[in-house]
């Protein structure tokens, strides 16, 4: 029994050590390359980038749901066309869309304002008769691209859908000699005179103001379609990548320094149980990092790091509650083994009740918070769960094994009681 316990104790320490190594250094077995820390999805405040929240101006329009879905699709197309494939687009509640775009040095566009403007611009294209009647809209255009025209200046050439071709053919046959205005977002960008019937379903838009860039952008916007909904940009936040990396480095450093001080304190104050606390805390940190890297939808953000570091403090609490109880029982004259058992069973309810209440507030935070606050809540929830597991199962077993070692000198486990009984 005694030898078995000692063996189990050593095995657990070895396992925690190995796990720590794997979590921080990764593991390669043959073709499998396991790098848990790389799996951690970093939030925008660390990678750098911009997020924008758009709100629909009017939710009472017909087919609102469908138009909302269409808007999300248009955002996706526009972002992909600029190479922002990592960007996430999420619908928030009924009327809001949140777009998160990581920006790094290789991104095509660097200015956050420019990006959010680019994706959120309505690009409502209309072809109008002289009296203002709309002939057709951007939706009737099947494809559009930038071409260099005969004069050497950029133009946008377009292909119409069958229906568009029909409408356009009819209008051009009626309006020969008159001007058709091409209106983008209520601004006339070109007003060509109709020379001939255009029945083939293709044409070009020319404008003296086109540059290569603006022409290709317009072509892209026409092709991805007009935004089906009118949107307001209600929130924009951006963060530079260097700032985020600095913040990450600093927080990790703070965490390491804090851990060292904490370990020193725990060992000095609680002795062998303190060492057990350090082992379980290391395991706690490993598991939290693993979970953040593997649970989908959980991002590591700066408040999230704060959540982990706060979680370490709270994980210590569970250990402290147990060891204080353990010490009380030992001081009351019980043997270490009995004290260990009694200490844990009494501490169990306390730890349960206190963690469940914290969990309640973390869950509320996860439901009502947005963005970084939400990710903070997720890390807090993970932290609480892992800390309970570490304290109630792992620390308990380690303590059980150690107290069954017949170590005669109780001061390895508890310091001598000073003064009289507490009452």
């Amino acid at each position, binding site marked *: 029994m005694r030898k078995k316990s000692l063996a189990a104790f050593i095995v657990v320490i070895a396992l925690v050590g190995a796990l720590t190594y794997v979590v921080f250094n990764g593991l390669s077995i043959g073709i499998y390359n396991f790098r848990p820390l790389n799996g951690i999805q970093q939030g925008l405040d660390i990678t750098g980038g911009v997020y924008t929240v758009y709100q629909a101006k009017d939710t009472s329009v017909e087919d609102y749901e469908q138009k909302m879905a269409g808007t999300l699709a248009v955002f996706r197309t526009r972002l992909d066309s600029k190479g922002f494939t990592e960007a996430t687009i999420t619908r928030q509640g009924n009327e809001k869309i949140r777009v998160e775009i990581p920006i790094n040095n290789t991104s095509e566009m660097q200015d956050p304002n420019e990006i959010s403007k680019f994706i959120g611009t309505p690009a409502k294209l209309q072809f109008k008769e002289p009296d203002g009647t709309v002939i057709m809209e951007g939706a009737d255009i099947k494809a559009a691209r930038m071409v260099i025209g005969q004069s050497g200046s950029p133009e946008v050439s377009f292909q119409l859908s069958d229906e568009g071709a029909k409408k356009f053919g009819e209008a051009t046959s009626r309006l020969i000699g008159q001007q058709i205005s091409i209106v983008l977002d209520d601004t006339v960008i070109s007003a060509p005179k109709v020379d001939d019937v255009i029945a083939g379903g293709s044409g070009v838009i020319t404008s003296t103001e086109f540059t290569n860039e603006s022409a290709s952008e317009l072509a892209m916007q026409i092709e991805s379609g007009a935004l089906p909904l009118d949107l307001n940009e209600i929130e924009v936040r951006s963060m530079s990548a260097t700032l985020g990396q600095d913040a990450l480095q600093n927080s990790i450093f703070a965490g390491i320094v804090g851990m060292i001080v904490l370990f020193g304190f725990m060992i000095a104050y609680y002795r062998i149980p303190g060492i057990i606390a350090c082992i379980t805390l290391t395991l706690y940190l490993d598991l939290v990092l693993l979970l953040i890297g593997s649970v989908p939808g959980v991002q590591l953000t700066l408040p999230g790091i704060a959540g982990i570091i706060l979680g370490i403090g709270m994980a210590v609490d569970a250990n402290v509650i147990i060891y204080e109880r353990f010490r*009380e029982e030992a001081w009351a004259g019980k043997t270490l083994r009995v004290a260990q058992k009694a200490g844990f069973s009494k501490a169990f309810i306390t730890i349960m009740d206190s963690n469940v209440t914290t969990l309640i507030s973390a869950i509320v935070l996860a439901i009502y918070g947005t963005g970084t606050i939400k990710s903070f809540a997720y890390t807090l929830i993970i932290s609480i769960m892992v800390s309970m597991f570490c304290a109630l199962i792992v620390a308990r077993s380690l303590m059980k094994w150690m107290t069954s070692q017949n170590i005669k000198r109780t001061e390895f486990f508890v310091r001598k009681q000073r003064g009289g009984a507490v009452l």
Partner: protein
Amino acid sequence: MIVQKFKYTIWITTAIIILGIVFALGYGGLNIGIDFTGGSITTIEMGQDFNVEDVSSVLKDMGIQNAPIVKSGENWTQAEIRVQVNQAEEEDQAQTSSDILTGIQKTYPNATIISQDKVGGVASSELVLNAFLAVLIACALMMVYIWIRFELYPGVGAIVSLLHDVLIMTAVMAIFRVQINSSYIAACLTIVGYSINDTIVLYDRIRDNNKVMGLKKYTRREIANTSFMQTLGRTINTSLTTVIMVTFLYIFGVQSIKEFAFPLIIGLVSGTYSSMFIAVPISTIMQERYIDRKGQKKKTKKKLASAAK
């Protein structure tokens, strides 16, 4: 002891809150961030040492008045410009910030915008509403949980102590003129979750001691005091370790982490204090008043009288 001293300890709380109100009034309100007011914060890296007046003159030329400029960054080479939403029309803001940059680049050619935050009026009012809702719901749910696991009055005591923590945090924010934004709300909610921990540990010990020591033999106050002494070691150690972690975060963290860590430190201290000196006394006094039978009440009175002698 802790129950009898309640009439004194409550004044410490009151004094801090009054001080907070005085400071807030003196400054003309709390320092509320754009998360709540709407507006924009643009951070510009100058690439060199700079004069705040140069930046404010650029702003003045553009017709932006009363926009506070704060020096920040490692070598104080960054300027944070805060513009309220009513001063720059919401739609023009993107334009405005690049104009500001162009203006500044005349004096400091290396200037670049490193971050820009913008919150519209609609978004900000929603944030405030959600924050209040979150605190209310969290408090209500925790109260129900304590009611089920303990009794009603400990629940009341716990909620009052949480309210106390949030008030103290806000008061300290007012005294130090720290900006209140969404990370402050996150800190408040964290403390609401954390401070309840301390309270539960104490309640749990009292619940235990009610059986072990016996309510027949001892008064509620005596049991509360004994429980307080028994858990004191745990309370101090836990608070200390958590405060150590968060303090390092504050020391080494960047601005946005500091904004979160500072209210956390205040809340941790306040939370520990309120569990011992607010939650338990309130719960004990209410139990004495509303649950205890005549015999128990008499005993409490007698013991109090003999203690007074």
